[in-house]
C-alpha cells in the first residue's frame, strides 16, 4: 500500500484520537484553572491551615512528573480499593498537575502588581478586600494571562503521556497503529500533524498575548 492509502485508512482513528486529546485537554485545563485559582486565593489571603495545605500541594504537584502521578493513581490506588477508569485517572492526574502550574501563574500575576499601586490603595483607605477587588486582581489577572496560556499549551502536550495508561488519545492511537502495521513514517507524520493543528495556533496566540501584556507594562 502507498503511504497515501495508509494515511487515508488511518484517518478515522486519528480523528477519534484527536477529538479525545482535545476533550481531555479541555476538561483538564478548566479543572486546573479552578484548582489553581483556589490555591492562589488561599495563598493571597493567607487563609490559615488551608493556605498551608494548598502550598504543600503545589510543591508536591510541581516537583513530580505526571507519569509517576498517573502510575500512582492507576496502579497504586486500586490496591486500597480506590479505583478509577483510565480516562478518569488521566483527567484527575492532569488536574492534579495543572492545578499547581495555574496557581503559580496566578501568583506570578498578583506578585507582579507594583508595590506603589498596593501602597496607594492602602493610603486612600481601601480595606484588604477592596484592595484585592479593585487594585490587585484586575492588574494581576492581566499580568498572569501569558503564563496561563503557556500552561494550557503545556497541559495539552502532557496529555500525550496518557498513552502509558492506554487512553486512546493521539499518541496512543499512533503507537498502537505502529505496533500493528509497522508503518512508522506515516503514523508518526499523522501524529505530528495532529499536535501541530492544535498547538501552532495556540502558540501564535500566546506570542501575541505576551507582546500585548509587555506593551501594557513597558510600552514597547
Amino acid at each position, binding site marked *: 500500500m502507498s503511504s497515501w492509502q495508509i494515511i487515508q485508512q488511518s484517518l478515522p482513528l486519528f480523528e477519534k484520537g484527536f477529538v479525545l486529546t482535545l476533550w481531555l485537554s479541555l476538561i483538564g485545563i478548566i479543572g486546573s484553572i479552578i484548582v489553581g485559582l483556589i490555591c492562589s486565593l488561599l495563598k493571597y489571603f493567607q487563609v490559615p491551615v488551608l493556605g498551608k495545605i494548598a502550598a504543600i500541594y503545589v510543591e508536591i504537584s510541581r516537583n*513530580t*512528573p505526571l507519569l*509517576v502521578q498517573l502510575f500512582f493513581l492507576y496502579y497504586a490506588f486500586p490496591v486500597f480499593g480506590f479505583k478509577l477508569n483510565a480516562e478518569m485517572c488521566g483527567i484527575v492526574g492532569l488536574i492534579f498537575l495543572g492545578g499547581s502550574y495555574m496557581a503559580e501563574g496566578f501568583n506570578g500575576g498578583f506578585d507582579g502588581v507594583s*508595590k506603589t499601586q498596593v501602597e496607594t490603595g492602602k493610603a486612600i483607605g481601601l480595606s484588604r478586600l477592596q484592595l484585592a477587588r479593585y487594585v490587585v486582581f484586575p492588574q494581576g489577572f492581566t499580568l498572569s494571562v501569558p503564563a496561563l496560556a503557556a500552561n494550557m499549551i503545556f497541559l495539552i502536550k502532557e496529555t500525550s503521556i496518557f498513552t502509558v495508561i492506554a487512553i486512546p488519545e493521539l499518541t496512543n492511537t499512533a503507537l498502537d497503529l505502529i505496533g500493528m502495521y509497522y508503518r512508522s513514517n506515516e503514523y508518526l507524520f499523522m501524529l505530528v500533524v495532529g499536535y501541530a493543528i492544535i498547538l501552532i495556533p495556540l*502558540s501564535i496566540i500566546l506570542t501575541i498575548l505576551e507582546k500585548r501584556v509587555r506593551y501594557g507594562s513597558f510600552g514597547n
Partner: protein
Amino acid sequence: MAHSGINVLFEGRNLIRLFGGLWTTVEIAAVALVLGLILGVVLGVLRTFPSRLLRFVLRLYLEFFRIIPTVVLLFLFYYILPKQMGVNLPANQVATLVFALWTAAEMSDIVRGALISVPKHQRESGMAIGLSRWQLYRYVLIPQAVSLELPATINLVTRVIKTTSLLMLISVMDVINVGQQVVEANNQKYPTGVFWVYGIIFVMYFVIDYPLSWWAKRMDKKRLERANG
C-alpha cells in the same frame, strides 16, 4: 497490615536495583543538560544577531521542539534515526540526544530573552566606546544576562529531570522501568507493594526537584523585591 507492602523494598536487591535505575535516569539527564545548555547558549546568542535568515532558522528549530510533545519527539527519533538515516543507537543515547536538542531549544529562548532584556543603553554605550561584537557580548551583555536567566535555567533543569520519566516509553531501563519490573516480580507476595514502589519513585523525583525549584523561586522573589522596591 500484616504483610506490610513496604517490605517489598527490602526484598532481595530491590532497593539497590531501584537506585541503579535512578542512576541511569540521572546520567541521561546530566549528559543531556550539559550538552543542551551549552548548545542553547550558543544558539541563544546567535538569535540576537542581525541576520534574518539565521534568526528564522533558529526560531523554526525552537518552535518545532516546543510544539511537539516530548513523548512524540522520543518516538520520532527512536523510529526515524535507524530507519531513515541508518543510525543505530541504543535507546539511552537516542534519549540523551532528544533531551539535549530539546534543552538547547528551550535554553536558546531563555538566553535570547535575557540578552534582549539588557537595557538598550548598555549595548549602545558598549558600541560607543568601540567594543567589538565579541567584546560587547563577553563584557557587557552576557554577564548581565546570566543573572536574569538563572532562575529560568534552573526551572528548565527541573523540567528536564521530570521529563526523564518518559524514558521508559522507549524501553530505557530507568527508575520507573525498574520499578515496574519490581512490582511485577513481587506482586504475589506483596499485593500492596505497588504503592510503595511507585511511592519511593515519587519521593525520589521530589527530593531531586524540590531543592532546585525552591532555589529558583527564591531568586525570582529577590529580583521582584528589588524591581518593585
